[in-house]
């Protein structure tokens, strides 16, 4: 199985899965904190419309986890604590 690195820890995924699918497969449905209410958020619409699943991928912020295919060695940072 291939792996991505999420907040410093390796996470296995099946080639072909998105970053969101890899996280959900590992039991994680939330990885972001909202700006105002500090509430946990993660995958909601699954098709790139709602922007709830944002995280940082290889240094690029504001990425939709449900759209970006996971690739071996990809570095993912969650908990931006911010929508911007």
């Amino acid at each position, binding site marked *: 199985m291939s792996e991505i690195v999420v907040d410093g820890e390796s996470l296995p995924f*099946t*080639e*072909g*899965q*998105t970053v*969101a*699918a*890899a996280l*959900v*497969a590992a039991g994680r*449905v*939330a990885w972001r904190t*909202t*700006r*105002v*209410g500090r*509430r*946990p*958020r*993660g*995958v*909601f*619409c*699954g*098709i*790139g*419309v*709602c*922007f*709830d699943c*944002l995280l940082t*991928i*290889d*240094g*690029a912020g*504001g*990425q939709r986890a*449900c*759209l*970006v*295919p996971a690739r071996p060695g990809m570095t993912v940072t969650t908990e931006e604590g911010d*929508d911007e």
Partner: protein
Amino acid sequence: MSEPADLLVVGAGPAGMAAAATALAGGLRVVLVDSGAAVGGQYWRHPPAHARAAIPTDDLHHGLRGYRALCEALSAGRAAGRLELRLAHHVWSAVREDDGFAIHVVDRRRAPQETAGVLRAPKLLVATGAYDRQLPFPGWDLPGVLTVGGLQALLKGGGVAAGSRVALGGTGPFLLPVAAALASRGVEVVAVCEAAHPSAWLRHPGPLLRNPRTWAEGAGYATALARRRVRFRPRTAITGAEGGDRVTAVRIASLRPDGSPRPGTERHVEVDAVGVGWGFAPQLDLLVPLGCALTDSADGNAVVVVGGGQRTTVPGLYAAGETCGVGGAALAVGEGRLAAESVLADSGAAPAPGPKRLAGVRSAVARHRAFARALALAHPIPPAWSSWLTDETVVCRCEEVTAGAIRTARAEGGADDHRQVKQLTRAGMGWCQGRMCGPAVHCLTAGQRGYEPAERLVATPVTLGALADLDP
């Protein structure tokens, strides 16, 4: 493809695939663009081609013969050098030019890297489909609460189930395939809460009886669900979700005819994931700024006005599939075919040779449209749905605007549509640009008036860096 294209098709779902295949059969040069990693759209969503063995999903699909035939037609078009297929390309804007259309794309094949580009052709067909329509309820922003389509997309695209004990709720026939798909992957589907009553179907029996294939598909799901002891609960709704870091339970209530919960019927059911959906909302982001006329459809959505040949009110611009009204994959395929036939006729080309005569496609499309209308009338948004909300319920997920704030904007600020609410509260101003909360905010303020979606000039965010690299 070295020569310029005759037709741009945005969206490679059932509608866009059928349109591209038909246009290719008629001899046109086509560019087919989709943001996804594979063709198929929502209905035929698949993992990318190289991952099909590792993520088997064939058993979750219907009509795979039609899908494969379309895939073959597209492959042949590519081999002949007349189809340029651009996957992982997001169209963020479409504009009219003197001699046709230009679409602005971001190439995300190496995401998160992105490259901008422009594609041009004399004719444009928009087949961008739809997304789940949502109604807020207390706790719908808890992790583990997803759209029903989101649950299905994770299953069909990635082979993963988002929970092990799942409740589904909302309205419409789409709840059934998702329940069946989850159950087939060993998920315990604890309830399917359908707000409508099945007897509502009997009010418009004609179109339903004229679509035996749809009956058969429905009966197939009913059998599959009964075998797995999935409880289908008509006239009920998920009126709340509870939990801390993740949903742990839902509240399910029986509904009165107006959709308000019957007092004393509420019960708690433990779950670790929830799927909700109230039909679909057409994805009109590219079409609205192009200036084509919209109209209200039976399900309360704004849809693109098209004539019998799928021509919009803008010359050279065509639409097919759920942008013209939600109606399922078979309708989308038929409309895609009709749209491409119009493109052929308007380009002075001969009709595409094919197994099915055009008149047959037209009558099938008319039948499916009538069926979709009957379904929409049988599965309305319950008029009293907002009685589930408390003042603290988040309505706009992005900007975290509550129902209380929106009610205040209406009562004290005089706001009577989603645009005014946005100015007063920021609802609809965040990342999703009101795609999730728009219909709900509209219902909360404008009552029975038709919903007109906001004009969004950018269909997907694009980085300035990608634009800077763009050749003029």
